[in-house]
């Protein structure tokens, strides 16, 4: 017997005590999915929680996003940035105008080429106020996963209408894009470790600087 059939047989004989064939009738799950978590101000909470992770957050009106993006990159000392193909044209223009060397990922940059670039600028899919989490679904305005991983600075733009209260609402919004096969990256602050004497160190392998622009 092959391993698959043998394991499934073992599972079936281990579960001889289970008589109800329908899992949902057999075990009730008393949980209502997709509920919002009540909070006074979702955007305020998102800013507060993201700051708590030592990320830098700038909240601006939507029209000022291009300037905010360019300002934050310059202030962080960024000399070069890779931009995903679908990035907003006005942000791109502001970055170029700020004198930052812009790289495209078309054709795909090698890992070593990416490693030599200072920063990446992206949009995002959904953000979670209660946990200060930004979710990327790697649509064209965010690019493939390696872009937001190898450069040491990640500037991400979050639109106010993309911010939800808590994890359940976020998972609900992301279901369709997962069904299409997109990967997801959930980011809560910069890369961090507490592996040495439980002392928190911000910045290990992922981007050590996370810059967030919240567009109202």
């Amino acid at each position, binding site marked *: 017997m092959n391993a698959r059939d043998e394991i499934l047989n073992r599972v079936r004989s281990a579960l001889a005590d289970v008589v109800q064939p329908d899992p949902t009738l057999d075990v009730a*799950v008393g949980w209502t999915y997709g509920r919002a978590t009540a909070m006074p101000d979702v955007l305020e909470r998102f800013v507060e929680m993201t700051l708590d992770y030592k990320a830098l957050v700038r909240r601006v009106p939507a029209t000022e996003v291009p300037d905010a993006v360019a300002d934050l990159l310059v202030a962080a000392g960024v000399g070069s940035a890779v931009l995903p193909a679908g990035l907003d044209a006005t942000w791109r223009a502001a970055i170029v105008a700020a004198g930052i060397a812009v790289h495209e990922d078309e054709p795909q940059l090698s890992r070593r080429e990416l490693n030599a670039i200072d920063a990446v600028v992206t949009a995002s899919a959904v953000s979670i106020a209660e946990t200060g989490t930004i979710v990327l679904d790697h649509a064209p305005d965010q690019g493939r996963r390696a872009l937001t991983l*190898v450069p040491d600075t990640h500037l991400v733009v979050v639109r106010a209408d993309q911010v939800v209260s808590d994890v359940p609402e976020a998972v609900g919004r992301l279901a369709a894009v997962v069904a299409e096969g997109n990967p997801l990256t959930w980011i809560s602050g910069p890369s961090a470790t507490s592996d*040495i004497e439980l002392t928190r160190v911000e910045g290990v*392998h992922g981007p050590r600087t996370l810059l967030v622009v919240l567009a109202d």
Partner: protein
Amino acid sequence: MTTEHVRRTPAPPEGTYLGMPKFATNAKVQLGDNQLRKNLRNATGTIRAKRVARVAEVPEWEELRLAGEAIKNRTLRHLDAYLVQLEESLTRAGAKVHWARDAAEANAIVVSLVKAKGVDEVVKVKSMATQEIELNEALEEAGIAAWETDLAELIVQLGHDRPSHILVPAIHRNRSEVREIFLREMKLYGTPAPDNLTDDPTVLAAAARTHLREKFLRAKVAVSGANFAVAETGTLVVVESEGNGRMCLTLPETLISVVGIEKVVPTLADLEVFMRLLPRSSTGERMNPYTSMWTGATPGDGPQDVHVVLIDNGRTRVLADPEGRPALRCIPCSACLNICPVYERVGGHAYGSVYPGPIGAVLTPQLRGTSSEIDKSLPFASTLCGACFEVCPVRIPIPDMLVHLRHQVADKKRHHPGVEQTAIAAAGWVLADRSHFELAQRAAALAGRLLPGRSHLGPLPWPASPWTDARDLPVPPSESFRAWWQRTRGETA
């Protein structure tokens, strides 16, 4: 392995888990290490405080725990159906699914996949499943170097050591030890640590970043585990902090994920429960820094050659015992380790398994059986205080299960009576009849009169030594209460 074999990675310590002595013996050794106890006390105390603060922020915490328990119960009680569904979803998404009955079969599958790629090294994401099957050593024997990339796992690997905690495996090492390990070992296996390396954790983390960056940039194959596998969509989830997981899951051409069959959850929506329970229970954070979710192979993004190895390795044996089955609900968070008064004092190494602490004490004897000294001692590595159940995000009744397993071990022993059984049998005889009791009291009083002026007995020879080595035994009184009553009140009792 032949004697001419030149190792590609640091050798782990001698000996195997299964050859280890019983828990009490290991615990005694660990208790003698003051530095270890200090490190453990600091670490577990810190994480406990963080967990309490983060859990208190969630008013519906108990509702979430009940949901987590119910979802996992539903999955486990219909595991065959969900595994078949997971396989279909993964295959549809372009992943190749492999099945492994045991560790040897899983290791053989991974070794042949790596060899087929023609490479001699892999990068690894921290994974309990691959530690359990001892994959690194299987790869080493096949001439393939497996590099751990989690900072704590790197410290353990370069330190020729074993992990001592699920979440912070190098909890037993302090910063100056880490510095020494990095200075001594990094240069032997790649980018050396800088000469001016200090013991500042920020500096040490930066050294790890530099050392591993070169390996990430050239790796063609990565090996991971998974925290969750969604049957409905074929989505795998890895929860991490440092970004080493993202590096492994994103940059190589081939990704091999070794996943225990109990990791399946029915739907993507179920993740809303577990992604709230896990980070707060585990690191005491609202959310861990990075979570990756991937569904097979995504064209133009990340590994295009994606494999999932589903392993049994004893899990169906756990599943077959309805009283032991709840152990498979575990979403390794380590809250039970951090709260356990026994773990806090002895650390992870005494448990003789990659699964230490309370959950290890119930899971390991079920996965491996109770024939070895260490495995049959594990159900006794607890005071049954019950704190582990209180903090468990999926409500595993660890104390009840420990008692259940103690019964199993005791039943096995019944046919080969030892000192304890003989003593209990003697006590049974003494207590069965008043005349036996009085005879025993007179014998004890005689012993008391033979040792005048002493309040306690020192260590006694075997078979009493296991008791008296750690305890003072009072000298029996020269007169029993019943004899005194009879003498002073002059009445017959």
